[in-house]
């Protein structure tokens, strides 16, 4: 087949749709030559979104949004459907990639102050997109309709319910009723596959349109702060002189990076697999330990660290103030220096934010605030003997749940203080008072422990950290 008929067909189509007239000039618009590798994150976010749309549509072909059928369909996708496992994994890791890339993209834009004149609305539309992406990530976690998913909606509804006055209305709206159940999952499904994607598509359209309108920003020049009076002219002048066409001179970097991202997503999916499904979504089952996906874990950790008085304000304040602060940022500062070297506060904010995120996330994974229901009894090697009152005391530590929260020589939970050396620190009377009356974050045990049991426990605790060869003085024990 000669090339001619092909060419003729393409020309016919091109003449009708106007690809060369309308699309090509956009693709070839001039961009600053200084852009280079800094600018690859935005397009990679878009690429991750395309992966999400595609894998999401495929998954929707087998996913049943309703009651226990949802769980069954997930099990089917994961275990039976050909390549279902890979698709689920790609959708999961694609979500992580999208959240991560969107945030990195935002940090880059922030560090280079690209949000300043005339690109304020580029930033604002981006902030809206970021929050909708987080909404996608959150609703997506719930569409994994297992025990964790069910309890995560409950937690979300409870958090929303703290809003003054309209709290219950919002909570009932989220749950689609007064409890988490069948109507909750269908609601989240509609949000996740119709409403939010529609907003994202529209948002991306606007975001791109604004990029075309104002041009891609240059690398900041410490000697050339933004002056709204002259910026556009100068930019135009420079770009005509030194700009390069986006396609293909600047775009190849984006394509290389996006390719790498897609392979990472695929690789994670194949080698790590999709997240395992918890037990079925039974809201009456208590054997769940609700934990959010990693990008929300820091927030979960914050909630467990706060004094109760502040909590409600933080639950509601962080997302709302976070949004308002970010959204209106270019309104507060839309001119002046762009170079990071001239904006130490910007650098400080990013470093502080990243460190806080990291520390809180690690803290989130360690979850030391939670009673550890699965602790084992103390072994004889720790107790120092395998019989007698000492061992009885050690056993009671387990039976009475002390070990759920207190660690002794590496055995036990971390909610409360470690007791490995407690015998050195507290006297018998101190211990008795604390166990009986409780105190800061410790329940009072007076009503659920007999005096014999109490003394066995205290005798045992007094040996902790004390030289085991010394005879233990039980002077005032019964």
């Amino acid at each position: 087949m000669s090339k001619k008929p092909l060419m003729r067909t393409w020309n016919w189509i091109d003449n009708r749709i106007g690809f060369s007239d309308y699309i090509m000039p956009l693709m070839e618009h001039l961009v600053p030559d200084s852009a280079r590798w800094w600018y690859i994150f935005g397009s990679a976010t878009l690429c991750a979104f395309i992966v999400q749309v595609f894998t999401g549509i495929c998954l929707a072909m087998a996913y049943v949004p309703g009651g226990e059928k949802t769980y069954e369909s997930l099990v089917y996708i994961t275990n039976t459907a050909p390549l279902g496992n890979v698709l689920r994994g790609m959708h999961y890791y694609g979500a992580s990639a999208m959240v991560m890339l969107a945030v990195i993209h935002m940090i880059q834009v922030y560090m280079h102050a690209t949000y300043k004149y005339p690109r304020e609305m580029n930033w604002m539309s981006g902030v809206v997109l970021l929050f909708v992406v987080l909404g996608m990530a959150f609703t997506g976690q719930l569409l994994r309709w297992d025990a964790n998913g069910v309890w995560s909606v409950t937690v979300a509804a409870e958090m929303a319910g703290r809003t003054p006055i309209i709290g219950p209305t919002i909570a009932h709206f989220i749950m689609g009723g007064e409890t988490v159940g069948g109507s909750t999952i269908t609601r989240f499904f509609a949000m996740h596959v119709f409403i939010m994607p529609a907003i994202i598509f529209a948002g991306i359209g606007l975001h791109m349109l604004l990029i075309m309108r104002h041009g891609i920003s240059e690398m900041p020049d410490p000697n050339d702060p933004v002056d709204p009076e002259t910026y556009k002219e100068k930019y135009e002048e420079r770009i005509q002189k030194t700009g390069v066409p986006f396609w293909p001179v600047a775009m190849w970097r984006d394509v290389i990076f996006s390719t790498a991202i897609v392979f990472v997503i695929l690789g994670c999916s194949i080698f790590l697999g999709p997240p395992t499904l918890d037990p079925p979504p039974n809201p009456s089952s208590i054997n769940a330990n609700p934990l959010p996906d990693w990008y929300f874990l820091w927030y979960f950790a914050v909630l467990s660290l706060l004094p109760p008085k502040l909590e409600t304000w933080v639950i509601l304040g962080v997302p709302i103030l976070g949004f308002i602060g970010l959204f209106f940022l270019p309104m507060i500062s839309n001119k002046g220096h762009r170079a990071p070297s001239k904006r130490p506060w910007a650098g400080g904010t990013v470093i502080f934010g990243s460190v806080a995120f990291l520390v809180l996330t690690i803290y989130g994974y360690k979850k030391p605030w939670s009673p550890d229901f699965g602790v084992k009894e103390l072994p004889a090697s720790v107790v120092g003997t395998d019989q007698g009152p000492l061992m009885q005391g050690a056993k009671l530590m387990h039976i009475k749940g002390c070990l759920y929260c207190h660690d002794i020589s590496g055995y036990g939970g971390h909610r409360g203080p470690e007791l490995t050396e407690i015998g050195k620190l507290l006297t018998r009377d101190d211990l008795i008072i604390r166990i009986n009356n409780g105190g800061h974050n410790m329940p009072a045990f007076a009503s659920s422990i007999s005096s014999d049991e109490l003394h066995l426990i205290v005798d045992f605790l007094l040996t902790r950290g004390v030289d085991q060869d010394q005879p233990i003085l039980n002077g005032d024990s019964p």
Partner: protein
Amino acid sequence: MNSDQPSTEKPCCQQQQRRTFLARLSIWLSAVIGVVVAIPGIGFVLAPVFKKPKSKWRPVGKLEDFKVDGFVLVQYEDSSSVAWAGITAKEGAWIRRASETEFIAFSINCRHLGCPVRWVDDPRLFMCPCHGGVYYEDGTVAAGPPPEPLKRLQVRINNGQVEIESGPTPLTLTKIT
């Protein structure tokens, strides 16, 4: 060319008026279309917020199944379940036979952020796996972040059946003082 043509019979302001009228007409009618389509949709979506389902009595077991002792977990159907809910229509409660005739029941939802609390028999405490909330056996807070005691549920004995009154998931509300 438009400008070269002899102008239409109507004077210009009349034409202008006509354009303004048509523009307004189109905008208003579009708004009407929007409202007409949106009202049933929004009503449908918001209905669960305003519909207050009546709480219902749900059987959770025979009287003789309960011994006077610690709490046991019971499951029953929630009061507002939809036809396709299946297993997700279930609700749980901790129930205890305090004496021959007296029952105590608590919702399993922690009053902090709603995680499912567990009854631990020996220390006689409810513990929450999420942020370390702990409650005594009477439902009052023993430790941790929960701001309120566990929600008490109504229990009754009906023809030898123990029944629990199922209702909404308890929410901890922010009171404005």
